[in-house]
């Protein structure tokens, strides 16, 4: 039975090959061409990539993507850590209920979330503006400025993913041996000190995992900003919240004759995710040590 383990993992690799690796390589091949989605293909080498480097709208999309990624992820992980720590308290009542409840937003379809939040953040009849109005704030056109749109979109992302990350962090916390806390308590460490010197260091592998997952998800942001402005692929009127993923879609599906360029955008995005994930890995490892 020497080979049976390979057999057991084979379905994954076969499926990954068909639905993961093959499309990726195909996209790479496309990106080296002047590729019309419903017409002709001409090999042009790396021309698409060099054009990308001097494309203002591409860099604008990169800026938006990273801006919203940071704006969404940093508070999200801080909040998730805080919530996980609360839920980890042994004396908390109705623990299972809270743990389930916190996960519910993640089960709701992303399109539904985007539509509902799109309505909350409407200019004329939106609830958020209504509440702000109670405090004397004038109606905000959330889709107009880059920062208002980024806040609205980050809120949607956090609504969906905070609970998910909380649960993963919670699982990580529960895997920390109890006796470490007991020993720390014996040495006179209060809850706060225990959190910093026991929980956080022991949580490091889980935290790295959560950060990398958030990076992959955050840099591929697409549905929320798209539906936020009614399916408009360029984001705001001046591309205030067009993400890289949206730009890729604009170039490859929005414009049939530039599919090769869109493929180059896709690969650029892939490389960015790899770089950021590695950076995250290195930084999180160092800093928590």
């Amino acid at each position, binding site marked *: 039975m020497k080979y049976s383990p390979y057999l057991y993992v084979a379905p994954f690799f076969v499926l990954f090959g068909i639905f993961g690796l093959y499309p990726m390589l195909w996209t790479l091949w496309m990106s080296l061409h002047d590729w019309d989605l419903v017409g002709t293909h001409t090999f042009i080498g790396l021309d698409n990539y060099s054009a990308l480097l001097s494309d203002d709208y591409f860099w604008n999309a990169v800026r938006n993507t990273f801006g919203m990624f940071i704006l969404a992820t940093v508070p999200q992980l801080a909040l998730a850590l805080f919530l996980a720590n609360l839920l980890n308290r042994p004396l908390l009542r109705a623990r299972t209920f809270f743990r389930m409840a916190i996960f519910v937003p993640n089960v709701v379809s992303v399109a539904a979330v985007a539509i509902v939040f799109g309505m909350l953040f409407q200019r004329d*009849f939106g609830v958020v503006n209504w509440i702000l109005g109670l405090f004397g704030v004038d109606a905000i056109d959330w889709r107009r400025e880059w920062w208002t749109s980024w806040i609205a979109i980050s809120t949607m992302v956090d609504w969906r993913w905070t609970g998910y990350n909380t649960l993963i962090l919670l699982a990580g916390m529960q895997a920390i041996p109890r006796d470490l806390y007991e020993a720390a308590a014996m040495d006179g460490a209060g809850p706060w000190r225990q959190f910093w010197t026991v929980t956080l260091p022991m949580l490091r592998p889980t935290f790295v995992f959560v950060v990398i997952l958030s990076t992959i998800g955050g840099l591929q942001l697409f549905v929320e900003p798209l539906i936020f402005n009614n399916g408009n692929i360029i984001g705001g009127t*001046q591309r205030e919240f067009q993400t890289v993923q949206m730009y890729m879609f604009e170039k490859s599906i929005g414009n*049939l004759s530039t599919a090769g360029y869109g493929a180059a955008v896709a690969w650029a995005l892939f490389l960015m995710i790899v770089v950021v994930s590695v950076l995250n890995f290195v930084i999180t490892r160092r800093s928590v040590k």
Partner: protein
Amino acid sequence: MSVSTRRRRYAAVALATVAALATTTACGDDNEGGSSDGAKPEKLVVDTFGEAGYEDLVKQYEQQTGIKIELRKVAQLNEFRPRVVRSLATGKGAADVIMLEEGILNEFKLNPGNWVDLAPLVGDLSKDYLSWKYELGKAPDGRLMGLPTDVGGLGLCYRTDLFKDAGLPTNRDEVSALWPTWDKFIETGKKYKQATGKGFVDSVTTAVNAVLFQQNGGDLFYDKDDNLIADKSPGVKAAWDQALAIADAGISAKITTWSPEWNAGFKQGTFAVNACPSWMLGIVESNSGPENAGKWDLAAVPGGAGNWGGSWLGVPTQSKYHAEAAKLAAFLTNTAGQVAAFKKSGPLPTNLKALEDPSFQSFTNKYFSDAPTGKIFGEGVQKIVPTHLGPKHQAVKENALEPALRAYESGQASKEEAWEQFTKDAATQGAF
């Protein structure tokens, strides 16, 4: 033979089986191979956007032929187009009959091989339709890519109740007399704004579209040879200036057309006027809801006749039933079909007999205060001179012109900056 080689062989066989299974499920329903003409389909799929008015017609066709028809509706053209593109690019999933709007038809003409030549399937129908409209349905290689559905004769929808509250006349002839020109329209808008404090027209982009399509026979973003001339086209400049004037007057509700706020605005009375090409009537009605029946009416558009929108029905080559799909397209665009669609949702006939049909000419639209829509739109339709749109018209309009105008209206860009944004984006969006 050792045990381990045998095992290895088992493993290899098993792996191959898994792989084969995975591949077959991945393309399990892949039984292409062109059309099987002559075979009677169980079901035909029709893709439309907006309100085409086909609901009852389709049922009628089902009863006549026993073929089940699936009608797939998408509200907006900008959601509709990617679906069509996706199915053409992957060779799968396209409907049997697809509605092609004038703004995207030219783009698909660049690759006519994706579309069935309808002429041999439905016979010579060239005398049945407005001749320019029929001719536009032909691809450069001469094939008939689509049968004409409708043209978008222009009118303006207005809310009689809101006009009354603002002290404006409500009778449609008097209202039309208020605005022979766009300047007069702006004056009226200012009066309305003063009286109510609310937006008069829904958006600047509504106005720019109306003016664009009043350039009868003139060039818009492309010249007749499909050279991109967006930055120097007099028609575009005229529309641009008019839209800026409306923005400067502050009479628009600053709403993005087709957005949820726009949809809600119809019910809430956020604006009192909306550009109404005939196909828009069905959209106004469905957005305003039954509770606002009889509050809308239809007046003439400032600045004279024009044509905004209008479509064709095409059959993609990937459909399995070319002949039957072509038959269905012909049914939906024949005299009775176009009259019925008009009565249901407003798309203005292009079929000559439909235009002469007494039940079309005498039709009054109950929802729009019994406005004689058949007469109003029918009179203008013969005068329409088509405008040449060029391959990427829709992309230039949607992703370059309209965003730049909105940026100006909301104060994000000055006149010069907005124009620069437009011309820069038009150059990339318009390339093909």
